């Protein structure tokens, strides 16, 4: 297999020389996480924490770190993307503008926007910057995606509530690539308020350490991960056994969501998906290996789900490989 250049992994799909490629990317919030992380499984990295300005040494607030981070990622042969805040109020805009200036100057390979005001800023003030649309931009429809494409969007993460059928329909109708969350905790909401601050005095632990603790909210068998100003699924979205279907549908941009995970999670899950995607591209009889499931299960504290990809409730898992569910949710449900 030949690496064709920074940011993609080409695989000869059918031996006939027709090279196709995929991008496996992940999220890293700050310089410390970046230096601690082994990025070898990945083709690209999104730099920054979208939830909170006070996230520990957030790249989006420390522009020298951001400049260095972009350079480091690119020196490692990966694409460097800069993300932006998901719910910025007016007073965030000057800092966002400065982050976009850094992204444009180094340059980063793209910026990710979750907010339409920031999209407008990128489009009007930094026309040379490639733009990816993030999940909180609420792209639910082809009509909405078309509007954003006209504003320069070159890739879209559709809202997490969309099924694969809807995502495929949207991507085809608008002719814009969709980025697919294949593993990790799915964002479920963003707040203007961090309820973990209530525990500073009680626990004697201050912001910005609070949201990096192992924190889940649970009720009636449900669980969600608290990230202070963000809430995420408790279960990890896991599309390991469905990768061939994603590739057949023409998807090639895949994310491992790891903003609140350990470097070990990022590297080990990333390595599983790198191997799995390469296998899925090369082998018609793809089946996820048990050793991959062992890694996935070891990191899935609550369990696995498929998000909304199959038109079901987000916390359900649909699959045929019992290895996915051995310790968590009981009988697997066949894909419709």
């Amino acid at each position, binding site marked *: 297999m030949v690496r064709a250049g920074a940011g993609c992994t080409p695989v000869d799909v059918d031996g006939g020389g027709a090279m196709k490629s995929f991008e496996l990317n992940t999220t890293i919030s700050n310089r410390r996480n970046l230096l601690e992380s082994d990025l070898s499984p990945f083709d690209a990295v999104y730099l920054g924490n979208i939830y909170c300005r006070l996230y520990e040494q957030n790249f989006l607030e420390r522009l020298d770190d951001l400049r260095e981070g972009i350079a480091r990622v690119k020196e490692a042969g990966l694409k460097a993307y800069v993300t932006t805040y998901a*719910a910025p109020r007016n007073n965030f805009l000057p800092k966002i503008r400065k982050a976009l200036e850094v992204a444009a100057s180094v340059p980063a390979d793209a910026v990710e926007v979750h907010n339409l005001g920031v999209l407008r800023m990128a489009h009007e003030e930094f026309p040379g910057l490639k733009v990816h649309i993030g999940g909180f931009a609420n792209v639910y*429809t082809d009509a*909405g995606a078309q*509007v954003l494409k006209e504003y320069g969007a070159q890739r879209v993460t559709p809202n997490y509530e969309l099924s694969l059928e809807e995502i495929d329909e949207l991507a085809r*109708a608008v002719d814009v690539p969709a980025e697919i969350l294949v593993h990790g905790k*799915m964002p479920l909401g963003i707040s203007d308020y961090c309820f973990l601050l209530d*525990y500073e005095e009680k626990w004697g632990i201050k912001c910005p350490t609070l949201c990096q603790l192992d*924190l889940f909210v649970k009720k009636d068998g449900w669980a969600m991960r608290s990230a202070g100003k963000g809430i995420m699924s408790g279960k990890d979205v896991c599309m390991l056994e469905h990768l061939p279907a994603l590739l057949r549908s023409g998807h090639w941009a895949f994310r491992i969501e790891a903003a609140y995970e350990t470097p070990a999670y990022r590297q080990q899950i990333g390595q599983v998906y790198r191997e799995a995607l390469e296998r899925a591209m090369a082998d018609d009889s793809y089946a996820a290996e048990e050793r991959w499931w062992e890694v996935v299960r070891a990191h899935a504290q609550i369990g696995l789900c498929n998000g909304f990809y199959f038109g079901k*409730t987000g916390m359900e898992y649909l699959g045929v490989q019992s290895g996915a569910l051995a310790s968590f949710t009981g009988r697997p449900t066949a894909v419709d």
Partner: protein
Amino acid sequence: MHRVTLLAPAGSPEAADAALRAGADAVYVGLKGWSRGGYRGELTRDELRETLRKAKRAGKTVWLAANIIPRPAERAHLVRELAGLADLGVDGVIVNDAGFLREVKRTFPGLLVSASVGCGALNEGDVLFYEALGADAVVLPGNLDPDEVAAIKARVSIQLEVMVHMVQQFIQLGKCFMPSYLHFHPTEKEEVGLRLTGSMKRGGVGVCFKVCQEPWDLYRDGQRVDRRLFPAQQVSRLADLGKFLDAGVDIVKLQGRSLPAELLALLVRRYRAAIGAWEGRRWFEPEPAALPSMWTVVGR
């Protein structure tokens, strides 16, 4: 001094009548199957016709909350339906998707189109974005400060609506996907045929069953450390209304299609009085100073 519109919610013809009599300049209503408010807060077509007739007679306007997010096939149907509703006399429509907004405005240029609070507009760039799409107004949440609103107003040409009476849930309006992660189910049997498919966020058969208003156990490192609710508060910016109006707010919007008519009327009269005081440059003292809990939409 600019003209200010008091826009009240109405979940029934009785509520609409009560709000208009109490001093609202306009009401916004949901039509069955068209809005995210849920079955109980929506009108039938006959009820909408009745509401329109009474509003027109009083020289007032009616907006339709069409804040669902339709799929492509559903959208074409909705646009056809909207033609009929515009003929009935609906003055404006509130929408929740940038693409749908643009299509509605292009198809019905005479209809006022507002970007719902569910669009998540928070800053001047958001409002400018929707302005460029053709929106006539954008709804901002009531937890913004008057000086933020003033800064936004200074940059835009379209109308600003501020939802000054609303529940501020933990998750920002329009950015919550918790309910459908946890459970999909129809709200009422009658709804299933009417509703679009998809999550509550989209106005589909899923429902917001107020999961954030039930107690959750907080676990740290696998150990239960607390039981709590997600924070939520009733925002009611009556005391700051003058500042919002000085900042240039054009439409004072109240949340609460679930409010019964008699409570809605009291709420509307309160805000009408405040607007009147501002227009007359008179001091306004809210009475009572704090909003009684019966007016809150939290927990409804």
